[in-house]
């Protein structure tokens, strides 16, 4: 569903990614691991479109999206839960969820809201609360929920377990697992590689902006 061909990207004159080739299928969970500064987040950002690639192409559902602005890619069915959550602190939980629903039909939004609330029941108890006052785990759930509102078929998640207690991380991965079972393709980048790898179908290792290995996960899930 998502194909990346010889992608290069960087910031200003500083190149970060070199010739990335990658493909992700529906319902597949791909874990991207690697040391700090390897270019994992940059890869996700160029897939969603906030970083413009300098070369190569990104194909989603058969159409080239390499130079499309992010909001069109979201409309096509991609979504990113960014590193550090980046929730809108002054907006309420409900407004955070709806912020990403600009061009999604109302019935889909209603449906997705239900889905998000069943996935993360705690959010449904906090709809009117200011998002900045949520706990770290709740903020992460909100960030994933916010990405889900447009009913994506490809979900990119950057560092979901950052700064969270193991119990909450387990809960998050369980949710991701459910999403994958529903047929959503998931790309997850995580420093805590063990959780990511055990949840993944395939594991991609990135070092210094290049893919150094791409293998089926040995961990498997339960």
């Amino acid at each position, binding site marked *: 569903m998502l194909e990346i061909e010889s992608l290069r990207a960087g910031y200003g004159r500083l190149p970060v990614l070199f010739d990335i080739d990658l493909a992700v299928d529906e319902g597949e969970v791909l874990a991207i691991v690697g040391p700090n500064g390897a270019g994992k987040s940059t890869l996700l950002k160029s897939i*969603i*479109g*906030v970083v413009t690639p300098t070369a190569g192409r990104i194909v989603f559902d058969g159409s080239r999206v390499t130079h499309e*602005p*992010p*909001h069109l*890619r*979201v*409309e096509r069915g991609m*979504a*990113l839960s*960014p590193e550090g959550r*980046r*929730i*809108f*602190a*002054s*907006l309420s939980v409900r*407004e*955070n969820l*709806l*912020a*990403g*629903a*600009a*061009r999604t039909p109302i019935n889909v939004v209603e449906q997705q809201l239900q889905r998000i609330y069943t996935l993360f029941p705690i959010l449904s108890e906090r709809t009117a609360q200011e998002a900045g006052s949520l706990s770290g785990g709740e903020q992460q759930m909100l960030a994933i929920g*916010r*990405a889900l509102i*447009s009913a994506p078929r490809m979900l990119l998640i950057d560092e979901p377990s950052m700064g969270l207690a193991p119990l909450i991380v387990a809960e998050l991965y369980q949710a991701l697992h459910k999403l994958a079972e529903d047929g959503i393709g998931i790309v997850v980048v995580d420093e805590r590689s063990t959780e990511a790898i055990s949840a993944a179908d395939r594991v991609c290792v990135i070092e210094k902006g290049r893919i150094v290995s791409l293998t089926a996960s040995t961990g498997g899930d339960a």
Partner: protein
Amino acid sequence: MFDPFIVKASLVTGVALGALYGILAVGLVLSFRMSRMVAFVHGGIALCSAFLYWYLTADPARTSGHGTNLAYATKEWPKAPAVILAMLLGVGLAALFAWVATGRMANWPRVTVTTFALGGMLIFTGITQEIWPGAFEIVPSPFGRGRVTIWGANVSHHQIAVIGILVFLVIVLHFVVTRTKTGVQMRAISDDVEAAEIVGIPVRKVSMGVWCLSGALAGLGGVLLTPMTRLGASVVLFVLIRSLAGAVLGGFRSLPLALLGAMLFGQVEAHTAGGTFGKISSGWREVILMAVLFLGVLLVVRRKRSQFRLAET
């Protein structure tokens, strides 16, 4: 020593002045929230719109240089289409500016983008000075010259209209910002631009729209302020500074606080000029206003400090 008549009159004038500052302050806050810049450019936009409005409506016999070959050949259009055209000009100029400024400046420091806005103001001011060099004109009010007595104070229709427009504006904006999809998107962008892009908000389109709105407000502000004073580059800038001062009290982010600030400055100005505290020279009035502004900034910065506990640059 407080003459109740003077106090009342000053109170009412102050509300009208505050409303005028408020209209521009709203535009400043909106632009700041979209682009993190103190939109000095609104001063230039207001001036351009005011000049256009004056050119379309003023009686040539009342322009400066009348009777000489330096007279300005102003039209004598009806007021309503002139106001609309002036606001449209404001929209156009703001859109032009935002088209250059937004996007590429997303990661520039606030001081740099603000300097850019200063440049925009100078250019727009320069254009009016090229066409009508040194003009310092009397501008007819779109609401005529009628006056009424309210609560013992003699108030012009123009002042009442300014207050009415601000009230209307506040109600509409409050509804848009808190209740609509666009309002949520606006607030999301002002919280975190990149995250807004990531979740699929068409950031450029929304901020362009907000810039157009604030441009219309700047244009309207220009049209409304000149009948209360005179039309000239320094006059418009002078009013802009008051609006800025109001917006500062809201930290450039909060609309209600900015309006409160604008009202406060309207009151201070009206009372010091109107004679509530005896005769105060215009120089001292300026010093007093500066002192209020300074205290305001001090308060805002304190409040921010305690919120974030970190120094911003």
